[in-house]
């Protein structure tokens, strides 16, 4: 790290300071989000009473925006495991200040993945049937259990490293409102910072970061199998598992970059989320995007070469047909151009990489829509003699409002959590700085 090392007290004060401020902008932001959520709740209530007929989903495209968003949420949630588990196990110390951001995103995203799938159900009142009458032959059952497992593990992985920080807040945030102090006291679990407590904490964290890996990989692989097990052109592909996992890391890295930029500017954390972090995350985004590009080429070139009847019809639609504009825009602006731009160092400075990440994230969402929906318009028999609305899928206002509402909930979860907890882990960063200082003095000697 290029920044000078800091003393623990200073780090602590720097990272706690944003929690004291409840800015006007923040309050407006939260109200905007709540209004969006209320609108979505109203729309969902309407959908509950009237049924899924309110959506644009019909016989042919019986899965639409909800399922595409579900895949998107699952994809984004994977980043928690990449940054806090994979990079940590690889001993990548630079990512320490980013772990909490990524875990917050992971938690919000996986919670919304679960919510979206219930929203998509025709009879959400029977969701427990999956537990009570589950059939192990159905990938939906696998997905149900793996999403819930990942939700729990994400929550634990967010909470464990928070405990010492909460204890710091309990001792320092004496001017906070009463409920907030009570919250800190309860959540700190009587943390005193004794040797045994530290040993226990580090051990449990280690177990969790290893435990989350298989679950993280299964969650997105199983989600891809939801599609791949169907013998449909465009879905029935053996590389769907790794293809989805690779794409998930792209989406998640972009989400973390966006959050990094927002928190850095809003909470003035330039000393903790440095330019170098953006540079390194930019490189990570480049790497994951390259892997994803490789899978994309595999996914489209191989069936494109054989051009069998159904695959050919599907690919024709994507490459030259109705979906072509969105397909090429997604591939170029969401993947190819970002890869080229990220090659250049000036493009990995905070602002440019933030803009690139926005494009990548929108592209990632559009890509999931393109994976889920066009395939359904190539059923294995001709579409004819149905109302015009059956031929295309254009989401209705109900679907859009509800989907936007889930985005608002995810952002609200993150916003509220960073109101009460520091967005950069205090003790972990302090530890890094101490280590850094120790090695520095050693080198001087």
């Amino acid at each position, binding site marked *: 790290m290029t920044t000078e090392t800091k003393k623990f007290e200073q780090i602590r004060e720097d990272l706690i300071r944003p929690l004291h401020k409840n800015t006007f902008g923040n309050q407006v932001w939260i109200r905007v989000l709540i209004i969006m959520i209320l609108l979505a709740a109203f729309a969902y209530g309407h959908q509950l009473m009237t049924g899924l007929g309110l959506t644009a989903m019909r016989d042919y495209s*019986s899965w639409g925006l909800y399922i595409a968003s579900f895949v998107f949420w699952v994809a984004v949630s994977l980043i928690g495991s990449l940054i806090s588990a994979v990079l940590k196990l690889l001993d990548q110390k630079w990512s320490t200040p980013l772990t909490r951001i990524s875990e917050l995103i992971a938690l919000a995203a996986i919670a919304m993945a679960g919510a979206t799938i219930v929203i*998509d159900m025709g009879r959400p009142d029977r969701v427990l049937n999956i537990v009570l009458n589950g*059939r192990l*032959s*159905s990938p939906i059952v696998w997905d149900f259990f793996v999403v819930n497992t990942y939700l729990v593990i994400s929550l634990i992985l967010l909470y464990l490293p928070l405990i010492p920080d909460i204890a710091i807040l309990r001792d320092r945030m004496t001017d906070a409102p009463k409920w907030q102090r009570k919250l800190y006291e309860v959540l700190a679990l009587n943390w005193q910072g004794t040797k045994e407590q530290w040993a226990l904490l580090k051990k449990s964290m280690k177990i969790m970061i290893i435990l989350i890996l298989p679950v993280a990989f299964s969650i997105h692989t199983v989600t891809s199998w939801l599609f791949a097990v169907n*013998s449909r052109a465009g879905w029935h592909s053996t590389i769907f598992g790794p293809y989805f996992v690779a794409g998930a890391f792209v989406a998640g890295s972009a989400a973390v970059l966006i959050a990094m930029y927002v928190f850095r500017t809003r909470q003035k954390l330039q000393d903790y989320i440095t330019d170098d972090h953006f540079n390194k995350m930019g490189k990570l985004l480049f790497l994951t995007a390259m892997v994803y590009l490789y899978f994309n080429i595999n996914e489209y070139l191989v069936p494109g070469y054989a051009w069998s009847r159904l695959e050919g019809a599907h690919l024709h639609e994507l490459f030259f047909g109705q979906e072509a504009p969105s397909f090429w825009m997604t591939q170029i602006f969401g993947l190819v151009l970002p890869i080229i731009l990220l090659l250049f160092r000036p493009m990995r400075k905070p602002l440019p990489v933030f803009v690139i990440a926005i494009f990548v994230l929108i592209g990632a969402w559009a890509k999931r829509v393109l994976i889920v929906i066009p395939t359904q318009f190539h059923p294995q028999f001709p579409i004819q003699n149905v109302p015009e609305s059956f031929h295309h899928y254009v989401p209705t206002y109900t679907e859009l409002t509800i989907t936007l509402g889930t985005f608002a909930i995810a952002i609200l979860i993150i916003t509220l959590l960073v109101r009460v907890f520091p967005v950069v882990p205090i003790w972990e960063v302090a530890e890094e700085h101490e280590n850094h200082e120790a090695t520095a003095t050693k080198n001087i000697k």
Partner: protein
Amino acid sequence: MKNVKENQSRRKFIRNAGMTLGTLLVTSAIPSFNAVLFAANKPKGKGVWYGIAIDIEKCIGCGNCAKSCKIENDVPQEPFFFRNWVEQYTIKHDGSIVVESPNGGIDGFTQSVPDAEIEKSFFVPKMCNHCAKSPCVQVCPVGATFETPDGVVLVDEKYCIGCRYCVQACPYGCRYIHPTKNVVDKCTLCYHRLKKGLMPACMQNCPTQARISGDLNDPESEVSKFVKTKNVYVLKPHLNTGSKLYYNALNQEVR
């Protein structure tokens, strides 16, 4: 020192035993997970094993089957909800194919392709294939879609959660989401009639007896004889669905 250690290990034992007991107690209260590896089973023994046969050479495209099905089974009247329907295939001289099915064939057909361009034309009645290895049964997360011991694929609409996965999985397009019940709906082979010894409504009302159903396990049944004496073919055999809907004189262009 030793005493303290013993004390600790005893405490540990009591704690562990307590935890184990507690876990057992809590888990025993949970209703057992009714997991079945595969919801459908092959028939045990030599019971009835329903199959369907459709003779394309006999079909005149009157649409009585689709119409009677809607009346018998309370299928929504809108022209895009069908448990069964008839398609008119027209193959042109240049090899291109036109498939039409206005209102599922209920109102009859008019040929839209000029006579001079037609190579050949025929009707293909379609319905649930009541597959022995149904992809729809396989993917149902709650076992709402199941196969009866006599080989009919049914939906228990009290269990269906409306996830629409079976609609995706069916390669024959035989399922739809019921607009008011919000659950999936499909052909039952008129199971309520079969159980009373009656024919399914679509077959009862077929004027040319182009469609029949019966016991495939009984070598003397009409269906068994049909399958044995004619060159029958199923739709999409490469998908290995174990389709039990046998067509006579099925053209390779039919999808």
